[in-house]
């Protein structure tokens, strides 16, 4: 059971990365795409036990790093921090989407802002990007919209009806 769910989670992360790098090449409203992998990390971190949530965040980020042009470990750091943040605050959130939506928006924006700051520190000149605000705000807004689909989907894949019942047993 454990292995199957872990494999499923990793599989969903892989598909999210593949969608991020292929489907969203062409679907880019206003010149930006959702940060789908971050959204999947947020969705899993709401339910998984803290250790697993951090591990999944690291794996998702590291996979991004391996396919990105940025230094190895940068996305892993951002993704793990995102998972840690969600783990810390998840108990204060109800399943109400009116609360979860802004939370997803804020966490995504924070993660992208963290990436741009760290990227600049490590020589990627991300803050020098002319469209930096657009590149943070638009993916966060798209994540807010996609959260209505992705969060319930991830909950469903974990076989739990609501987070509150989340005596999650991997």
């Amino acid at each position, binding site marked *: 059971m454990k292995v199957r769910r872990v494999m499923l989670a990793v599989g969903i992360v*892989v598909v999210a*990365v*593949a*969608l*991020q*790098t*292929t*489907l*969203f*090449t*062409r*679907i*880019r*409203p206003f*010149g930006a*795409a959702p*940060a789908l*992998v971050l959204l999947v990390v947020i969705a899993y971190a709401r339910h998984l036990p*803290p*250790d697993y949530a*951090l591990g999944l965040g*690291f794996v998702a*980020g590291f*996979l*991004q*790093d*391996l*396919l*990105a*042009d*940025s*230094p*190895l*470990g*940068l*996305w*892993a*750091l951002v993704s*793990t*921090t995102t998972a*840690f943040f969600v*783990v810390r605050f998840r108990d204060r959130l109800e399943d109400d989407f009116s609360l979860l939506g802004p939370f997803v928006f804020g966490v995504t924006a924070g993660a*992208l802002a963290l*990436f*741009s700051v760290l*990227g600049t520190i*490590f*020589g*990627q*000149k*991300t803050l*020098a*990007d*002319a*469209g*930096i605000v*657009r*590149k943070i705000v*638009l*993916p966060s807004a798209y994540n807010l919209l996609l959260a209505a689909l992705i969060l319930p989907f991830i909950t469903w894949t974990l076989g739990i009806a609501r987070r509150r019942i989340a005596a999650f047993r991997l």
Partner: protein
Amino acid sequence: MWRPSNLDRTTGIFIGIVVLCLALVTIDLRASGEGLGSTLRDGTQAAFAPVQRAVATVTRPVADFFENISDMFSLRQENLQLRDRVAELERELQETESLHVRVGELEALLGIQPPQDLDSIAAQVLAVGVSEFDHVRVIDKGSDDGVGVDMPVVDEAGLVGRVVAVTGSVARVRLITDPTMAIAVRVERTGETGVLRGRGSGPMTLELFGSNTAVVEGDLLVTADARFPAGIAVARVTQAARSEVQYSLRTEAQPVAGVTRVDFVLILVFTQDEAGVTDLEDLERLPTDVPTDPGGPAEGEGEEPPPTTTTTTTTTTVAPGSTP
């Protein structure tokens, strides 16, 4: 009083992962794109390419649907623009034909061999970067097809970027708009050389040094960089500008290639070594009193300063897309 024992298990694991990530970043930066990091990247890219191909095929109808919707709105406007463009191109074609004759005459006069066409490899864009901050494209041709690191990549309009990593079946192209990219360019109209820098999204920054002349809106910037064949269109100036203090000029330019919506590209079989040799050969043919212009970028910024090809008033007449 704070003690390490006050940390809960989750925070401890988080700090451990953060330290691990920072170590990875440091090691990767010190390796400068080589070593284990590079091997892991190439391996992952090669292994992930079939997944990306499969997902791209499966999601193509979805992408087509959304693209068609957006196209419907822009089609009418685009049609009008294209009509204007056709009329403009017909006019330019006539001008170009007469210029070709003139170039031939001048080349014969100077004893320069007409530039030979470079070999090229057509490729399709398979995937983009993993985030909005990643200015790369993954193309479906690799070293098995003859693609090599540092080769220039163009589309029908101009320079798109250059190959930065290659596996057997795919290659990664860094776009010219990447903030770490700096390209030595020449203003086609005046022959002045300068440096064009990427800024992620939006217009690129053009800097001319030791320049007395102004640039005007619409001025075409072509490559004058030893890493690329000379004369490839790169960008058009979007803001007229004059020299400021100490003869430096700074303005903005828009890439001519469809950098954000590129589907098919051509990889030019051209390497820096090849360029270096050709440049030296060209230098030997030039009169000794012809001034050369280094035109490199400001020190300490971006990737290593681009080596420029020799720029003189005679080379400005070489047609775009030709070899140096």
